[in-house]
């Protein structure tokens, strides 16, 4: 028997195996908990076991995310797998650990008590990873220990005697590789046994009595020594890569090159895909419109709903490309290196290096970023991070940025095609948001936020290839979210805009655009925004996009679609004819700074437990946006 064989029967003189067809227990398994330290490959395993159908929610009362899914991928649709947060110990210093303990002991509201536990540990540093095993075992649930990254262990000459380890731990043990999808047959087998033998009565031979870090550590070291665990050699690849990627000057240079390349590709590959999608959606809309009677219904569906939603939907390729790159950077382990490189900059503005990860995730969306600031223990630093997070360029800004850039910036290439003008403008907008965040944090630090620095402690995982499955899942999640938003919030607001653009009805006829409610409203607010180079349609777009940033594109799609003068033009062409270059650039600058997002305001209100902060944030960001757009328009108009 190879020493890597999964060991499910732990007792030396085991009772005869129970026939799985005849369950002894009357209470079937329902809920399985998945627990493991950070970077143990837990999420990959979760994806392997559940497949694409998973639910993400927040635990009641806390902001820790809660992933759960049916274990469909291994044919156990009757079982729910709960993914617990990645933690090093069950000691309740962090909210994540508190959540894990509450779920495991059945005290979490709305979450059923798990019937058994899958404990994932990184097989390549078992000494340290086993420290989590002691507290998990002592909860007393049937537990299967999955030693992940078995492929890596073998490649680097490490060894584990699973039989000895299972005897020592008193729980079944198996070596697997979630990334390679090997060894996972052991999970359904374990679940079958756990279901038929609810309590096998087995407990570890010895557990530390007082579960401090030091005693767990001593216990873990003894266990690995007794079971003759061979620590694998250090990953040569990781060392070699790090000597380049963290090189004194090559490191930052590569970091910059990576960022530029990401934007370049999002633009160069995204634009044609987006154009292609526009053509398809336009044709589909026109085809369907022909089937409808030529009356108010056709107007409502085509102009009121389809134009607005379509204008937003066509940005799906860019959004997906951006998340593909973020996914690759994160899953490969490069993001942790980026945090290490960026720490120096973060420190000069008085932010914790730990704030880097929430701020980075704010590039996707400020809402999860603000929730992720819970990992920052220092209250003031946390508040500072919350206040600056919405300046980071979230993906909801991408549609309006892309639209304006494609309409107004020529597609010129420099340096033999490496640098494109459009990608550069886009990158500048991202930099602008970052700069605003930086200055705001600086200001807060030198005035209200005199903070003591919390420590920067960052584990650098080994480099690994991102898995196709992991990336697919990310894109699927993001794409679903985007399409859902287009089909709900954006659909709703654009419908309202359309309705107001044809009302009031005079003698059975819809109003012309300028005589409509929205026309009057637009002309009423126009004086305020004219200095920024915005016409009244843009003004309505700004008002409507307070709900969510993408809405402006939908609103403009509707308004220019209703207007007979621009009815037959595409949105880009319509905008080109109706705005100056100064106004167009001022518009994206406005969006770089403005707080056009009710979800963010709501989450800030929840996290700070006060209306004061979201109100101040909204006022501050709107004023900054207005002034910056004003300056931009005035300067550009004078220069060109």
């Amino acid at each position, binding site marked *: 028997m190879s020493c890597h064989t999964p060991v499910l029967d732990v007792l030396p003189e085991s009772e005869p195996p129970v026939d799985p067809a005849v369950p002894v227990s009357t209470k079937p398994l329902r809920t399985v908990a998945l627990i493991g*330290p950070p970077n143990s490959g837990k999420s990959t395993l979760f994806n392997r076991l559940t497949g694409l159908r998973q639910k993400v929610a927040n635990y009641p009362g806390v902001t820790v995310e809660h992933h759960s899914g049916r274990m469909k991928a291994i044919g156990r649709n009757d079982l729910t797998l709960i993914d617990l947060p990645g933690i090093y110990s069950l000691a309740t*210093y962090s909210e994540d650990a508190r959540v894990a303990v509450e779920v495991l002991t059945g005290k979490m509201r709305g979450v059923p008590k798990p019937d058994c536990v899958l404990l994932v540990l990184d097989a390549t*540093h078992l*000494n340290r990873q086993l420290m989590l095993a002691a507290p998990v075992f002592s909860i007393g649930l049937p537990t299967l220990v999955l030693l992940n990254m078995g492929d890596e262990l073998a490649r680097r000459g490490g060894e584990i005697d699973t039989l000895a380890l299972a005897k020592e731990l008193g729980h079944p043990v198996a070596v697997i590789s979630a990334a390679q999808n090997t060894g996972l047959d052991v999970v359904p087998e374990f679940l079958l046994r756990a279901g038929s033998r609810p309590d096998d009565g087995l407990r570890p031979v010895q557990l530390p009595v007082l579960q401090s870090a030091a005693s767990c550590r001593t216990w873990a070291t003894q266990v690995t020594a007794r079971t003759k665990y061979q620590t694998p050699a250090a990953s040569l690849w990781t060392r070699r890569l790090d000597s380049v990627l963290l090189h004194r000057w090559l490191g*930052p240079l590569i970091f910059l090159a990576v960022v530029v390349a990401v934007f370049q590709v999002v633009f160069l590959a995204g634009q044609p895909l987006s154009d292609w999608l526009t053509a398809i959606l336009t044709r589909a809309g026109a085809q369907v419109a022909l089937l409808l009677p030529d009356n108010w219904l056709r107007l409502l569906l085509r102009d009121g709903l389809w134009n607005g939603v379509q204008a937003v939907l066509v940005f799906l390729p860019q959004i997906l490309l951006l998340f593909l790159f973020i996914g690759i950077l994160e899953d490969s382990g490069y993001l*942790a290196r980026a945090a290490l490189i960026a720490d120096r900059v973060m420190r000069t503005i008085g932010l914790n290096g730990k704030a880097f990860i929430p701020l980075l995730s704010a590039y996707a969306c400020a809402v999860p970023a603000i929730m992720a600031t819970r990992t920052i223990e220092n209250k003031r630093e946390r508040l500072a991070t919350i206040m600056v997070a919405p300046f980071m360029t979230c993906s909801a800004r991408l549609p309006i940025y892309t639209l304006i850039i494609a309409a107004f910036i020529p597609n010129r290439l420099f340096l033999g095609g490496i640098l494109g003008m459009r990608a550069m403008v886009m990158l500048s907008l991202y930099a602008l948001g970052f700069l605003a965040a930086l200055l705001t944090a600086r200001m807060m630090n030198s005035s209200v936020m005199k903070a003591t620095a919390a420590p920067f*402690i960052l584990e650098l995982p080994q480099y690994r290839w991102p898995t196709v499955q992991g990336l697919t899942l990310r894109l699927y999640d993001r794409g679903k979210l985007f399409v859902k938003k287009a089909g709900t919030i954006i659909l709703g607001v654009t419908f309202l805009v359309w309705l107001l653009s044809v009302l009031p009805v005079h003698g059975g006829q819809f109003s012309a655009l300028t005589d409509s409610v929205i026309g009057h409203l637009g002309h009423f607010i126009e004086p305020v925004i004219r200095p920024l180079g915005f016409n009244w349609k843009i003004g309505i777009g700004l008002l409507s996009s307070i709900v969510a940033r993408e809405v402006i594109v939908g609103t403009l799609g509707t308004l220019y679609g209703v207007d007979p003068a621009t009815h037959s033009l595409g949105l880009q062409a319509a905008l080109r004819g109706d705005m100056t270059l100064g106004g167009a650039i001022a518009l994206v600058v406005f969006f770089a700074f403005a707080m056009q997002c009710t979800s963010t305001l709501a989450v800030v209100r929840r996290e700070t437990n006060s209306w004061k902060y979201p109100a101040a944030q909204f006022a501050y960001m709107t004023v900054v946006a207005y002034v910056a757009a004003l300056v931009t328009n005035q300067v550009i108009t004078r220069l060109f």
Partner: protein
Amino acid sequence: MDVTALSDAKVGSAGVVESVDLPENVSHYLAHLGFLPGTAVEVLRRAPAGDPRVYRIDGVEVGLRNETAKHIFLRLNEAAA
């Protein structure tokens, strides 16, 4: 056999953790990354800006700012060079 602050150990040197003098929540976190008395630690490299630095402890690479590392003390291996 010198005891020295981790932040003062040269890149490439190695030793054994002697003590960790940090607030409990921080030392608890560090303990789970391996920073406990008796564990072997190696100074791997500096971040491009010189600080933080990367340490290899117990098979894991961990980045720490010098302001944290100066509260961790280690006994340098004599053979280390």
